[in-house]
């Protein structure tokens, strides 16, 4: 038994649903109670899908238990086959049905006269989660379609893109971008699975020279099987960021046997120049905390560090299946990876690393908002606003442009930052409403006694109110020094060390670096065994740590 407040992943049947919903003319009969139909809204609301997901739920009730739940399942399969006439029928069960052991797989396979290929799905609902369910569902259908096929004599110089799915982050635009990229080096895309795939697409998979594993969470198991079965090499490079995109082009060219030298000479991304332009100087060393699925977490860390010049202060994932890869990546940044599906643990890690930017899921968006830290969503699970109307891939050169814009936008602009630093007394530069970021950076009080602004009060509608409250609070704090420490700052630390003078000086440091200054000064005091922090200590510490 484990307590969960918010979860990063749903149960495995949700993953299976993502795969079935991705495909064309597939259907899924799910043995499940009525409440489980909530899953429809994930597709129709978050992705604004204009049709219901192709799922029939048996919606058995207590009164059916022990009598005819198995029968109900069989009837639902027959009804769905007749009504929707799918090319392929997935059958499975949710957590509750797993307990009543009707074995929907064998039931469906045993239905006489059912004129549609059946793919039974069995995933342990009490030990595995959504991505596993997606990965297994894709593997199951690919295997079912191809298990008796042999290695083709001839292959077309092309690749398959494996892994993009409904409710995957920006998959819709990523495949368009990657296909265009492949085309630019004369490589055809043989098939994309599961997003928009037909059974014929799956049937054609062995025709391609190689498989591109775009999202390991969904595609890895299938790629590995195709490799064993059809000797198709797997291209693992995920083309997120300029360097990775170039490596991707190289890897594909090699695998397929085309010459990409010309294409590699002009990379069509603005990121490298934007990142080198003097305006971007202020991005140097920005502290960034990353928590996402493994694919996006690893890719984001590399882009952040190598292409934007950020400092990666935290890196983690909820995809335990790929914990090893994320650990290895974290090590290369000299930090320890956080592998967990407990968002409270993530929140603690965010607090303690004091990042200036959080890259994460919708969960991180909310915690960052609460903590007043800039944030950008880079991975599932996401909400409706992360399915933009405009074209906004993460992959390829255009993806790099999108990333530059969307990660840099929430941060403070360079010269603005200096002005804030120089004229800290300007009444309009209140802590709560700095610059163009307005509502974003309302450093809501985070102290245990910080009852002036509690997280509960921060809802989209009243963010301004909160910001104002924070502003007025700051003003009081400036006249009444005794209040400065706990309420206005809302930063953790040992406040009893600070003299009034030093505190007042600390307040003059712009809020977005104040935390760091405070932390360093206290560390310095600790290191040298100082009992109080005076104005002098503050500047001693500054000198001590400068350049580090």
């Amino acid at each position: 038994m484990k307590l969960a407040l918010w979860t990063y992943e749903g149960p495995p049947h949700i993953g299976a649903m993502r795969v079935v919903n991705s495909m064309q003319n597939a259907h899924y009969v799910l043995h499940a109670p009525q409440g489980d139909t909530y899953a429809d809204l994930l597709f129709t609301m978050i992705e604004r899908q204009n049709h219901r997901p192709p799922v029939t739920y048996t919606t058995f009730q207590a009164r059916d238990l022990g009598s005819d739940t198995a029968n109900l399942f069989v009837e639902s399969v027959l009804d769905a086959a007749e009504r929707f006439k799918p090319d392929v029928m997935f059958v499975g069960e949710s957590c509750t049905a797993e307990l009543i052991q009707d074995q929907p797989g064998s039931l469906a396979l045993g239905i006489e006269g059912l004129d549609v290929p059946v793919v039974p799905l069995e995933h342990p609902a009490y030990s595995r989660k959504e991505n596993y369910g997606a990965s297994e569902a894709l593997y199951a259908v690919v295997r079912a379609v191809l298990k008796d096929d042999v290695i083709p004599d001839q292959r077309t110089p092309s690749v398959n893109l494996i892994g993009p799915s409904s409710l995957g982050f920006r998959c819709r635009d990523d495949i368009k971008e990657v296909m265009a990229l492949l085309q630019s080096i004369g490589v055809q895309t043989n098939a994309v699975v599961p997003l928009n795939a037909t059974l014929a697409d799956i049937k054609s998979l062995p025709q391609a020279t190689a498989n591109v594993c775009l999202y390991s969470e969904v595609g890895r198991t299938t790629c590995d099987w195709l490799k064993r079965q059809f000797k198709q090499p797997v291209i693992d490079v995920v083309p997120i960021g300029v360097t990775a995109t170039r490596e991707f082009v190289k890897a594909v060219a090699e695998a397929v046997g085309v010459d990409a030298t010309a294409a590699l000479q002009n990379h069509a991304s603005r990121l490298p120049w934007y990142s080198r332009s003097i305006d971007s100087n202020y991005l140097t060393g920005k502290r960034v905390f990353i928590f996402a699925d493994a694919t996006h977490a690893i890719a984001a860390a590399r882009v952040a560090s190598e292409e934007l010049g950020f400092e990666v202060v935290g890196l983690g994932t909820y995809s335990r299946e790929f914990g090893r890869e994320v650990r290895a990546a974290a090590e290369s940044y000299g930090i320890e990876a956080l592998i967990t599906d407990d968002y409270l643990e993530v929140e603690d890690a965010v607090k303690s690393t004091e990042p200036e930017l959080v890259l994460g899921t919708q969960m991180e968006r909310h915690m960052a908002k609460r903590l007043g830290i800039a944030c950008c969503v880079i991975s599932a699970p996401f909400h409706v606003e992360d399915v933009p109307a405009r074209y906004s891939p993460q992959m390829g050169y255009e993806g790099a442009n999108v990333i530059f814009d969307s990660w840099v936008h929430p941060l403070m602009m360079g010269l603005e930052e200096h002005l804030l630093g120089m004229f800290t007394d300007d009444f309009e530069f209140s802590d709560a409403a700095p610059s163009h970021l307005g509502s974003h950076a309302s450093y809501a009080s985070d102290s245990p006694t910080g009852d002036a602004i509690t997280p509960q009060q921060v809802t989209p509608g009243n963010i301004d109110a909160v910001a104002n409250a924070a502003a007025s609070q700051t003003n009081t704090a400036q006249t009444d020094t005794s209040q400065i420490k706990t309420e206005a700052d809302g930063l953790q630390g040992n406040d009893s060390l600070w003299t009034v003078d030093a505190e007042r000086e600390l307040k003059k440091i712009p809020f977005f670096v104040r935390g760091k200054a405070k932390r360093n000064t206290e560390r310095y005091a600790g290191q040298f065994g100082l009992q109080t922090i005076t104005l002098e200590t503050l500047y001693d510490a500054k000198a001590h740590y400068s350049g580090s």
Partner: protein
Amino acid sequence: MTMPVASVAKCKTPAAEHKTAEAKHKTIDIVQERGQREVFCGLTGIVWLHRRMQDAFFLVVGSRTCAHLLQSAAGVMIFAEPRFGTAILDDRDLSGSADFNDELERIVNDLVVRRPEIKTLFLVGSCPSEVIKLDLEKAAERLNKIHPLRVLSFSGSGIETTFTQGEDNCLKALIADMVQGSPAGDDDVAFSRPCELLVLGTVADVVEDQFTRLLQAMGINSVAFLPTRSASRLPLIDQNTKVVLVQPFVGESLRELTRHGLQHIQTVFPFGAEGTLRWLKAIADAFDIDSQHFDRVVEAPLSRARTAMKKVAEPLQGRRVSFFPDSQLEIPMARFLYEECGMQPVEIGVPFFDRQCIGAELDLLPDNIRFVEGQHVDEQLARLHQDQPDLTVCGMGLGNPLEAQGLATKWSIELVFSPIHGFEQAADLAALFVKPLKRRQLLKVPA
């Protein structure tokens, strides 16, 4: 072909499903349908109950699906650490290698440390916990002995409850506690001695305040609302307490109360100007309040509501509306839209008919309506496309697909998530239904 799952039977509603000495209502034809239901389970109620009762925590004993449902239904507001969570069962719990009570105790211990302000803990049963027969009532009793907080239990499972029935079960658990008469030791009138009137069902805080003011002006001074804003401050009741419903989905709680001798004031629900007027009038009559005095009290808000309704509801006149089964609010909403906004209901789907709760509303509806109990969602969608109503009230999973097919929709979940009761909200309620129609007129981009 006839679909095997859709066993459609036409039948009269059971005349006296619940034996009470209450008013006889007219009989209507109800089509009973069986097939795929597209309705949330009772766990969903936690999403508003945990906001209403600020010192309570709801611990679902269930699966990852239950946790995911809660977060998807509530998904939109994750600003605060929620006062609900799911104790997710795993293989060890199922195989019996972990002791259920020990595990639960461990989780509750952690919770108590983390959230010391929690005064009442609800253990909420789910499909998995019920299928493997975990006894949450016993577990609650045990925990009650160990912890200073009060532990109660109820079922929100999808095999036993639909969407709003979770609240009904939750209130029943509170009522069981109330009838045992644990005194709250409070100065508040409603809490120091048995209240005169108990209003049953969740309403927005602002609505509670408005009703309280009106009822007090009428002369009913000790009024209590259940659920209360604080789960540890429960009102006292006795046989002289009268009970009135403010939500149509709390029938079991009502019967629990009438079993203990409370008198049910049967009436319509306070939606719209007329609905609110009838509701208040029924209460006034039950308390023998002088009718001139009553008129004086309601005069100003009533005329405000009527004027506002006139301004807002006009675009609904003569439009046809259908309902998918969802929150049990279908019948009261149909009555409001028919009587006060001039709409014609075509089909009204309801998860289940509880005559004791909605009988007075049914009496006010015309005869040419198709009533459907239960659901076969595919069949219902087929009928909807035949009917082509001007507005369809449905759950969130169906909204966008129907809009894409050219049908205007209103999400029914808004009806439980927004203040819609009472005089001051009458026009807001109408506006909820006007908006989708207005928007379609406004938009000049091609569909």
